[in-house]
């Protein structure tokens, strides 16, 4: 009995000291300190690129012979994008979910709203849209007649989709035009038929003239979506990050620079790549099985945090969406302006960006980031915030 107790104690102490010494002695992966120029070089070499600052450069990157860009097409697309008459109940436009202001120079929405005589019902635009960065805090998309998305999917940004290869959460859609068509027809979005849409567009003199100017075959369903596609392609944002990549070392803070280094070294850039930092591929989420049922956090506390999760995702899967082919495949979301569009993930189940970064690191990279590392990455993500560039369309052709 005595011996048993004695050996148990010795054993317990040995095990404990081994655990503690392993924890203390394991070196954390050291991310080298890059000089500003080295960091820029590294980022560019890994395929991260700034957004174009002139219309000419934009054309070089995104113009497509099957639907070439033109000033008149952009103007037409812009009218269509904000037109609520193109939905069944005449309440919804593309901009209902993809919210930013039609007038990029509009900086006085709040003043206008509170001084207007009309009664207004909780107009989120007033506070959120005076920066043209697509800020939205909606959890799931709601279409005409306030019908929610059947899977309660969160609206993805249209900004910078010019540089994306796949569209929508599942990544099934391959062009903006195609998704634009889907959105018109879907009963939980614009809820309108091809014929009705053409009729409504044809009723307007303004549209008739614009279509005649732009397309040889006038008003067709195809052409409506072509115009919208071209307008959406001009919705490109630029932020401090782009200025940094263009050579301005003081554009982003030292925290953000470390965040960028982390972003590259940890492997985030593997999927969130190219100009838009996303939209290039379809990937599995969550990648790591260990996370599916229980989340055991090795926090070096006596009482580890044990949490029962939804069996599919590390958050509640309201809406029940399971990705492409129900196999957890998702199109990698675009990270530009991500800090402005909480909540996160396909159903908006994670409300805060820091937690979202944590989830991604844990389940995609198998890493437990420190709070400082999360902060640095968030600081970097903030440098991706930017307003829509007002391209001078007339400058070249």
């Amino acid at each position, binding site marked *: 009995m005595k011996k048993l107790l004695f050996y148990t104690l010795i054993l317990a102490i040995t095990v404990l000291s081994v655990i*503690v010494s392993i924890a203390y002695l394991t070196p954390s992966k050291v991310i080298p300190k890059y000089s500003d120029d080295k960091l820029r070089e590294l980022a560019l070499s890994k395929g991260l690129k700034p957004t174009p600052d002139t219309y000419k450069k934009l054309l070089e990157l995104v113009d497509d012979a099957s639907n070439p860009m033109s000033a008149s097409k952009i103007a037409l697309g812009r009218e269509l994008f904000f037109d609520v008459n193109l939905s069944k109940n005449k309440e919804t436009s593309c901009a209902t979910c993809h919210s930013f202001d039609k007038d990029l120079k509009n900086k006085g929405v709040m003043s206008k709203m*509170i001084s207007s005589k009309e009664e207004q019902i909780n*107009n989120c635009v007033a506070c959120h849209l005076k920066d043209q960065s697509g800020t939205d805090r909606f959890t799931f998309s709601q279409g005409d007649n306030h019908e929610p998305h059947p899977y309660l999917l969160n609206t993805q940004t249209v900004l910078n989709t010019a540089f994306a290869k796949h569209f929508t959460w599942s990544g099934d859609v391959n062009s903006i035009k195609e998704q634009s068509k889907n959105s018109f027809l879907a009963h939980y979005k614009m809820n309108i038929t091809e014929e009705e849409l053409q009729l409504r567009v044809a009723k307007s003199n303004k549209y008739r003239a614009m279509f005649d100017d732009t397309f040889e075959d006038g008003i067709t369903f195809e052409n409506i979506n072509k115009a919208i596609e071209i307008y959406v392609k001009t919705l490109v944002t630029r932020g401090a990050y782009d200025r940094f990549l263009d050579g301005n070392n003081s554009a982003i803070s030292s925290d953000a620079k470390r965040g960028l280094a982390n972003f590259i070294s940890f492997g985030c850039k593997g999927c969130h790549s190219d100009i838009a930092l996303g939209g290039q591929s379809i990937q599995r989420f969550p990648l790591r099985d260990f996370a599916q049922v229980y989340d055991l956090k090795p926090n070096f506390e006596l009482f580890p945090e044990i949490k029962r999760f939804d069996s599919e995702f590390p958050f509640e899967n309201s809406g029940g969406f399971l990705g492409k082919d129900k196999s957890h495949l998702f199109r990698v979301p675009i990270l530009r302006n991500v800090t402005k569009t909480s909540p996160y993930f396909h159903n908006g189940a994670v409300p805060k960006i820091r937690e979202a970064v944590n989830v991604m690191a844990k389940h995609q990279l198998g890493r437990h980031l420190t709070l400082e590392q999360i902060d640095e990455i968030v600081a970097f993500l903030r440098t991706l915030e930017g307003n829509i560039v007002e391209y001078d369309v007339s400058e070249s052709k």
Partner: protein
Amino acid sequence: MRTIIKILVFVMFVSGVLQWSVIDLSWEDFRVIQVAHILSSIAILFLLLPFIYRHIRRYYFIKKVNSVNGWVVFVLFILLIASGFYLLLVGNRGGDMFGELSFNVHLYGSFLLIILFIAHAFFSEKKQITPLVLLALINPQLSHSQEKLSNIEVNSTRSYHSEDWTSSTKCKSCHSEIFKQWSNSNHKHMVGSNPYYMVMETLAGEVEGEGFRKWCMSCHNPSALLNGHEKTTHDMEGNFLRDEIFEKDGQGLIADFKEQDNFRLEEGVSCVTCHRITDASSKGNASYTLTLERKKYAFEDSKAPLGHWFSEKLINSNPDEHKKSYMDPLYKESRYCASCHDEFHPKNGIAIVSTFKEWEKSEFNNPKDKSKHKTCIDCHMTNLKDGKLSPLRGTSTDGGVIKEDVKVHYFSGSNHFLAGLKDKKNEEQTIELLKSSAKLDVDVKDNTLSVGVTNVGAGHHLPTGVADFRELWLDVSVKDRDDKLVFSSGKLKEDGNIEDDSRVFQKVFGDENGEPVGLLFWRYKILLKDTRIPSKQRRVESFALSKSVKYPLSVEVKLNFRIYPQWTTDAVKKAFPTLPNPPIIELMKVEKEFK
């Protein structure tokens, strides 16, 4: 086996004594040793009990040795275990004798025990201190280390973690009553849940540039500002703005904390915001120093419920450091409040709110005569009953020491409205305070009605604060012999605004062209009107009556107060349609006949 027991007893003794305030151990070591002491005591208990049983059995029952010393050691040991458990599970919170008793028994008893134990076990052997090494080994990093954040002024650009802003929900478990008072008070509802503020901050950002929000946020939302946020945000409920206007007792905050712990920043003025201000000057515009770095007990930041529970037990068992971390003599001084309750334009320095300066000049500021000296908290954080200040006898901690004057956290001032939408008790306190502030007197001579309003209760102007958005006015009705209304003033127009030539006690700001500034109060350059009533002064308003009035006249004068003008509420309602109109509070009414 015996050797191990001996070693363990000494370990317990040494680790206990090290926590004694006389030793003055560094905080980092203290918090680790406190935990080690408690946890190992439980482990050791399991080892010791069988040993003691067998020891007594062997010597007393079998060998028939009756050692008095042994029995004393045994009794002492039981006492120490009992007092130790009491300290751990109930704590030494100050409210009951047992806590204090347990503490003393545990502390002094241990010395006695160790002497007797040496006598009993070693006779003349010397202490062995080697096992301390073991303790040093079991020294995990207990909670995430704090950044060096000392003495940060508000305009610093360094940012904190949301974790550093310990959620007020944590304070609730021991300070439930204070939490309840604060959670419905104006100090809690200064940001996302305050529609007026949200509109004004957005407007300020829109008109003056986004960076201008910092000026608002430095007092209204220091946690977000110091965390590097650029603007104040509101809570969402799915796709909708959460309607927090009517939300009681901080339910949203509690739910948030339950779901996300401290990962989500608590915006606004939380418990730690005020209770971690380490220095303040009366300059205004957030002239305070905030230091979040403080002594934390082990597991205080633990996300695990058990760890959290344990940290509370650790605090209760020895709450001195906890008290020291969150209380400061500064908090009783007026300059502490002045750091935010005086306000000037950040660019041109023009004074916008001067509540502290008004107080400084008033009779209430009388440091020579302590009986007449009244600081901010003497009126605004003291319980009111039946229209009088009547200090609340009770505890600030659940189970804590009884205090004669518990400082209540209703923060009653003038804004009864937003607090009242949540809690009636909170509203009552403010209305009682308002009603105790002024007196009315009425007289008619030579067909002139004169009404005197005296500021009897406030140590500052009436109204003070954002007096450009406060309405204190006279509602007058005069009826003649035939009960016909012959004169009236201060009635409401159809749209809810007060009649144009009413007698309103307020200040009116004009911009550089002398035009009223409306909502954009920061554009103030020229004072168009100042009819506020300074402390202890009387202001007389005269109304000329028609010469042909038939006496006797019955005069009814009311002193009315409304927290926001109707036009302000109308503007805010455009963005927050569920907001009701603030009611008019009748502070005093005089009815008199004149012959």
